[in-house]
């Protein structure tokens, strides 16, 4: 990227800056660790006259998302941010935002769900929203969180999509750490996101509409099929938005996930979010020892790019999926997706599931190296492994 300015910023600051540059009409939010500073910074920008947005402070996240749905239905460009318990509390309305096709862009600072109560990172909050109908993008670092927030705006508002987008960034690991990030010029971002033209703005009194009505069994199913269709349109739109974004930023996004040294790899790990950065270091170290290892990092989790990921994995020896959340009584959410993508194939890699990092438990380079070591064992037992848990 060549047009912007390199700065040392926290994850909070880059997301708040992305929001400032998008300049939504409305932001409705409620504070919750580790999200709060995103909206605090944004509110400061509003107070300082740096952005012309209406900030609605509400009494809960349920109200925050409700206000967002009302605002978006009115025809206003709308954003919010939350985490953990906040997302859990707004969940009822997240489903409604998706079903009403309101293109709300929201940051989620990933944090473990209670209980026991914990403020640190895992993915149990956003994974709980994976069936809600929102698009989910997972960022590895502040830069990706910034760029996905901008791209999310275009993706959400695409005519054949019109769905909310959740941009996640790992709580504390990304939100509270200062990183070098490169922001685009304000003008470039406003040109990129353009004006939002809602399809059925409730405030258009010349063309009255009823929104969010009761659906009987004779139409509910059809409205759900519309959401299926919209979700199916996301991958192509995302690639298109990436291309336009690259033109703007000089970046090189060209897929639904990132592959790192995967071309000739025999052994691979699949990881969402910031831990992918740690895994890259491990891949580099093992490559120096001559090991053919690689990393696949999904950017898009909803919709899940099953076909595309299958194509990359089929010729591998063994693959480990590292989940940062549990689905009690089943495998990890990411593992289930990858396993489903590979089902039906006769020749496919051995596939293993690991759980790591719950409630902010650190995962270190040597622990990821051990995963790669496991994969080299052709007789490795197929069972869930819990990295770093005292068993």
């Amino acid at each position: 990227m060549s047009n912007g300015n390199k700065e040392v910023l926290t994850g909070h600051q880059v997301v708040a800056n992305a929001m400032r540059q998008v300049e939504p009409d409305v932001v409705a939010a409620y504070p919750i660790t580790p999200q709060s500073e995103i909206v605090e910074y944004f509110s400061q920008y509003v107070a300082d006259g740096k952005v012309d947005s209406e900030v609605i402070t509400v009494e809960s996240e349920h109200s925050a998302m409700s206000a967002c749905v009302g605002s978006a239905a009115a025809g206003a460009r709308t954003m919010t941010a939350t985490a953990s318990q906040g997302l859990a509390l707004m969940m009822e309305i997240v489903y409604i935002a998706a079903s009403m096709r309101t293109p709300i862009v929201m940051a989620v600072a990933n944090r473990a769900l209670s209980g026991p109560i914990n403020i640190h990172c895992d993915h149990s909050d956003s994974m709980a929203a994976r069936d809600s109908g929102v698009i989910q993008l997972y960022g590895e670092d502040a830069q990706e969180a910034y760029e996905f927030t901008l791209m999310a705006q275009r993706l959400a508002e695409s005519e054949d999509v019109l769905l909310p987008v959740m941009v996640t960034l790992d709580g504390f690991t990304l939100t509270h750490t200062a990183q070098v990030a490169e922001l685009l010029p304000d003008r470039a971002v406003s040109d990129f996101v353009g004006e939002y033209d809602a399809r059925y703005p409730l405030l258009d009194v010349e063309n009255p509409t009823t929104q969010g009505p009761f659906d009987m069994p004779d139409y509910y199913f059809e409205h759900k099929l519309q959401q299926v269709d919209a979700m199916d349109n996301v991958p192509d739109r995302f690639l298109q938005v990436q291309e336009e974004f690259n033109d703007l930023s000089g970046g090189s996004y060209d897929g639904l996930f990132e592959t790192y040294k995967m071309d000739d790899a025999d052994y691979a790990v699949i990881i969402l979010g910031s831990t992918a950065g740690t895994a890259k270091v491990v891949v580099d170290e093992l490559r120096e020892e001559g090991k053919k290892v690689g990393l696949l990092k999904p950017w898009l989790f909803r919709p899940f790019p099953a076909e595309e990921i299958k194509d990359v994995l089929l010729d591998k020896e063994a693959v480990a999926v590292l989940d940062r959340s549990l689905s009690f009584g089943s495998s990890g959410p990411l593992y289930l997706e990858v396993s489903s993508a590979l089902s039906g194939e006769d020749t496919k890699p051995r596939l293993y599931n690991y759980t790591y990092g719950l409630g902010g438990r650190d995962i270190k380079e040597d622990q990821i190296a051990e995963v790669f070591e496991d994969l080299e064992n052709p007789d490795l037992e197929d069972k869930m492994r819990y990295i770093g848990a005292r068993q």
Partner: protein
Amino acid sequence: MAEFELKKYDEIPIGGVITGGATPELNKTGDWRSERPIWDEDTCIQCLQCWVNCPDASFEISEEEIQGIDYEHCKGCGICAEICPVDAITMKPEGEGSEDE
């Protein structure tokens, strides 16, 4: 209730939006009422408290005066009977109420 042709998923507006408005008027939603309000025109002082407080829009009004109750939309919540300062509205069980009407 009018007969509607059931359309395919791609033949209807997205998100459950109903274009044209007036949906509450078209949908008859008064048929699950167990008690109905009976309005006594002679007792009524036309304060319009019932009209203001009705959670639906079931009080028919013209010339700033209550004309009657729209039973196709009234759900029988009884707020009007409770709010009426001169007891001009009384709640009667369905069946019994219809005889008085």
